[in-house]
């Protein structure tokens, strides 16, 4: 049994909120450089340069890469031999978000009620996903999600008869409809299977996988590659001004499902696909 005091969780969440918004992850940076080499259009190349320059400015001047610093999506993998002390885990996560968004000069983009729409002024509450895993560690991942891309995401309950072709068509339709809106180049998280909410969760979780790591199942690794190729043949390009680089990566996660169903969720993210993690 390992004890972790909530104050440690507050500090960690706070730092992760700031880091995720200030620093572009290396896998994304590498992917943008490689994409630039493959672009034949000068405007597309220029835009990829601007995005990379923006990441340097944000890092050097300690400021957010994007003004939409997102709703804080927090994934907690809690070892079953961990005992949280000193207070409530949920309160600690929200306090970390509150302090991170205040001290990091991040935008407060959360309204307390979806219809009444009054800003909570501290970017809480966070969206928290908990999972209990073996061991005595606590892994915290903070993935601030902007809504330019979140609004372009889609979920559909396909019929089993739609099969793999139905999945591909639905993914391509979602990316086409999103067009220039989610700040392409995008990262496409796809959840296939499970139930309605499980598919959506898997699509979100898929976005945490680095863009240079494929699905461990060769069938889905090949599907990721095929979909990426098809998406990058649409011509949308960086910012939607035409070009090859519409997406940097397609990440698929799957789960068992019901005999009557084939749920598919497409969670679109902008090029930055912000996330930072720490293990306590």
């Amino acid at each position, binding site marked *: 049994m390992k004890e972790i005091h909530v104050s440690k969780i507050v500090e960690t969440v706070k730092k992760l909120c700031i880091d995720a918004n200030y620093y572009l992850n290396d896998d994304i940076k590498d992917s943008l450089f490689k994409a630039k080499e493959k672009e034949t259009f000068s405007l597309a190349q220029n835009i990829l340069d601007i995005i990379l320059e923006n990441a340097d400015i944000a890092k050097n001047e300690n400021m957010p890469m994007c003004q*939409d610093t997102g709703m804080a999506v927090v994934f907690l993998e809690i070892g079953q031999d961990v005992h949280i002390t000193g207070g409530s885990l949920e309160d600690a996560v929200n306090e970390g978000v509150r302090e991170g968004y205040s001290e990091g000069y991040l935008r407060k983009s959360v309204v307390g009620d979806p219809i009444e729409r009054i800003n909570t002024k501290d970017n809480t509450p966070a969206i928290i996903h908990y999972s209990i895993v073996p061991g005595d560690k606590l892994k915290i991942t903070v993935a601030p999600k902007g809504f*330019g891309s979140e609004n372009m995401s889609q979920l559909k309950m396909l019929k089993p008869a739609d099969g793999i072709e139905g999945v591909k068509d639905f993914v391509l339709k979602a990316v086409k409809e999103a067009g220039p809106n989610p700040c392409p180049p995008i990262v496409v998280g796809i959840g296939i299977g499970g139930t309605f909410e499980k598919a959506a969760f898997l699509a979100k979780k898929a976005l945490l996988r680095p863009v240079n790591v494929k699905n461990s199942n060769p069938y889905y690794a090949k599907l990721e590659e095929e979909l990426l190729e098809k998406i990058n043949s649409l011509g949308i390009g960086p910012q939607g001004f035409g070009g090859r680089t519409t997406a940097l990566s397609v990440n698929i996660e799957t789960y068992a499902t019901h005999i009557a169903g084939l749920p598919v969720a497409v969670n679109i993210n902008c090029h930055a696909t912000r996330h930072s993690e720490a293990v306590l």
Partner: protein
Amino acid sequence: MKKKITTPLTDDAVKELKAGDSVLLTGYIYTARDAAHKRLVELLKEGKNLPFDINGQVIYYVGPTPAKEGMPIGSAGPTTSYRMDPYAPKLLEIGLKGMIGKGSRNDEVINAIKKYNGVYFAAIGGAAALTAKCVKSSELIAYEDLGAEAIRRLYVEDLPLIVVIDSDGNNYYEIGQREYLNSTK
């Protein structure tokens, strides 16, 4: 070669802008997003004056991050424009000349751009730290209670933009994508 333009925009200046042009904009612009647009259009419905003279002006769809001490603004990239589509034609009708955002506009907005000789620019989505460097001053104009969504008057220097929809209704999202696809055939 990038065209240099200044605000307020004259009808002649708007007519010279063509879809696909890269421009550098200097002058005062106004920030407004969903909530501020809703209030502006409600004022018009009630026959009241807007909190600023909109004639010839440019609205930037942005909700910046808070400014650090000594800075005029925080990160300030464009938000997705289609959410302002329900309000934009009314504002163009009463004299708004330019809109800055990112992403597609609906047919009503494109028709209003043509009818009232307006222009829609895109700033680079996600390049918000870079954009902030072009903002030299920021002044609160209205709706402080909206926080990041309040209306501010910004003075910008050489803000890099791309003309997406020009006053003839040409749409660079369509043109650029078509040109790219033709080049790969």
